[in-house]
């Protein structure tokens, strides 16, 4: 056996090791793998200002407005969704369950969407929201640092952001993060 025929093999081993190392490293720094990591600088701060039209069925003319001032007085769960958002389907049944449980009122932000599409969606699958606001241009989403819906924020009675859930809401996340804070804020 001649050694030079092993050279390609050695090079391969080196390259694979390098790639595996990089992959592993990239993996551990990705926040999605750390469910407790919440990369939002908003936490502990007053909610950014917003002023959006309320989505009413049937449509009201002119539509009622809702601003950050209207949030004060009681804790609120704010959920960014859209009819085109596929991951939002995942959390929808759970949101319905929460809505039926009556322990909290959820405010839905219809993100970069049309009222018609949102009405059609909620008509078909049920409406878990206490109130829905229209954010057709995504302006509120931009100010709130939304980077991929669904996202759900917990705002306390003083209008301070307490927690942010990225991705679909799950029963586990709800119990772990939302319920304790909600009870504390009550």
């Amino acid at each position, binding site marked *: *056996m*001649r050694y030079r*025929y*092993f050279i*390609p*093999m050695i090079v*391969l*081993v080196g*390259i*694979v090791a*390098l*790639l*595996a*190392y*990089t*992959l*592993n*490293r*990239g*993996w551990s720094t*990705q926040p999605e*793998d750390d469910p407790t990591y919440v990369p939002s600088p908003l936490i502990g701060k007053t909610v950014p200002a917003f002023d959006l039209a309320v989505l009413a069925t049937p449509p009201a003319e002119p539509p009622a407005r809702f601003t950050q001032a209207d949030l004060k007085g009681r804790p609120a769960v704010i959920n960014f969704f*859209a*009819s*085109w*958002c*596929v991951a939002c*389907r995942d959390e*929808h*049944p759970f949101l319905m369950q929460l809505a039926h449980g009556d322990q909290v009122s959820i405010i839905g932000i219809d993100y*970069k*969407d049309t009222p018609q*599409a949102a009405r*059609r*969606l909620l008509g*078909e*699958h049920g409406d878990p929201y206490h109130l829905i606001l229209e954010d057709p241009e*995504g302006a509120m989403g931009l100010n709130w640092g939304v980077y991929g819906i669904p996202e759900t924020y917990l705002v306390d009675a003083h209008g301070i952001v307490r927690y942010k859930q990225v991705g679909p809401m799950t029963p586990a996340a709800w119990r772990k993060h939302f319920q304790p804070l909600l009870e504390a804020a009550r």
Partner: protein
Amino acid sequence: MIVELGHFALMLALGVALVQAVAPLIGWFRHDARLMATATSAARAQFVAIVVSYLCLTWAFISKDFSVAYVAQNNYSEMPFIYRLTAVWGAHEGSMLLWVLVLAGWTFAVSVFNRRLPSDMRALVLSVLGFVSIGFLAFVLLTSDPFTRLFPVPADGSGLNPILQDPGMASHPPMLYMGYVGFSVAFAFAIAALITGRLDAAWARWARPWTTAAWVFLTLGITIGSWWSYHVLGWGGWWFWDPVENASFMPWLAGTALIHSLAVTEKRGLLKSWTVLLSILAFSLCLFGTFLVRSGVLVSVHAFASDPSRGLFVLGFIGAVVGVSLALYAWRAPRFKADGELRLWSREGFLLFNNVFLAAACGAVLLGELYPLIVNAVSTSKISVGPPYFNTVFFPLFGPLFVLLGFAGVVAWKRAQLRTIVQRLRIPLLLALVAAAVLPFALVGKTAVTAAAGGLLAVWIITTAVAELWRWVRSRNSAVAGLKSISRATWGMTLAHIGMAVCLIGISFNSAFSIERDARMAPGAVEHLSGYDFSLGEVHAAEGPNYTALIATVYVVKDGERIATLHPQKRTFRPGGQEQTDAGVAKGALRDLYVSLGNDFGNGTWGLRMYVEPLVRFIWYGGLLMFIGGGLAATDPRYRLARAARRVRVAADAAAETA
């Protein structure tokens, strides 16, 4: 129901692939002809199952079945029909299904066209392809199942990424996959050669058309990709040395080297183990490309959503496939004996140089690709290796290659005659020197060192290639008889080499003379750019099938005459509002005028980016010529008559050893 059928067909295909991989291998060990023969039927059955599976997914897209998660993520009710078809491979899961479909297609083709192959060779080749297929089918089924259902069912999908809603991008991935996967056939032949220990002229003749065919598709895929990025990305370039572009370019370099070393192995029985190694490397680089695109290891224009578990799977698969084959190589390759002596001063010697330069270029690209990862692994600094590195390394390596190209047809096998070479290359050299001086002025009206050098080399390549054909024709009684006597493979080689030259002209002239200007313009404003006056007309909104667009009108005037009206667009796609630029291009053989619409400054002024791109189209014309040339070479009837030539070549110098 249809969707479940598709899923089931895919699992069935995996089962069949297992049979296709294992049964013939056992058959080969036991010398059981019937077991070996199962390979052919298994390959065909697998192909049918995957076609069914693929059609089912396509059906889900056509019928807008949003209960399928993958469809919901990449389809949208307003999307034009054609993009609903191409959306099937618009994201990771579907593109992997396309990948296995293409693999099954190549395997099917092998089972059809290589019926005359000795049964052991055919069985082993199909077995290796079966193993590759197992890996990818398992990958699809375990980590990237496109048939997963979604509940509750969304009312509408979230739409295909707008960047993919373009004819160029729609056809780029299938072509690239045809190329990538095509090299699996060359790989399978190499492994079969290692297992049987049989590597002769006949083997090379079987492997050659498959390798060339894969190369042809890869060439086309890269050409289309380049054209698409020029057209859609809005910054006027045709190649960016982007990590993912490089990932498709490395197999191309290795494949090009392989095509040439296969010629040496066939004609002279030399470079055997090198040819086998190149076959393995070309396919490994294809797998490596897939890994890079899908693992998120590198940040790139084209990177798919990073998913470490997928990355790990592909990496493990690469490690297994390449590891096993290189181990096999280390074990078996030393037994391949050269049928003679390699002289450098001969065609095979020149082809060896060709291989050295191509392999070095490939290695340099690979090094540039991996270097940031190495630095990042050993230190905390983060670096990127950009176009300057690739340009400085690449062109010095490719320059000599272009010089060598001129000798392609002139240098004889075994031993070259200096006198003949000088005699035949005098006139081409003279013409090339004249061209270097004249061509830039003739085509663009000015000159530059890059363009002169490019012109020199290109004309050198073209004239030597044509002169060789001409000499051949003249040696016959009549021109018709002469032209007829030229083999298809020779036509193919000549065309491909000319294509390379045309591409070279495009690259050198474009890099020397392309001009770019960014400007903030109000309607009516005029910018002067290299003799052209660009003026902005109005900017108006328009509706597309699933997007709204801002369309600017830009007039181009030269010498007081309006020569083009361009309509660069900025499109906002529903749903989600992703933006996409679409450049306005006035195409011309000798120059493109190119405008893309930039940002809105709000007070009626717009950012515009204007380019004058001389000869940029030559780059893609060259790619097309290489595609056609390769196609001719791959379909040369000589390969079909392989049976007649199955005599084992008697080595001229049997005593020669590679020690």
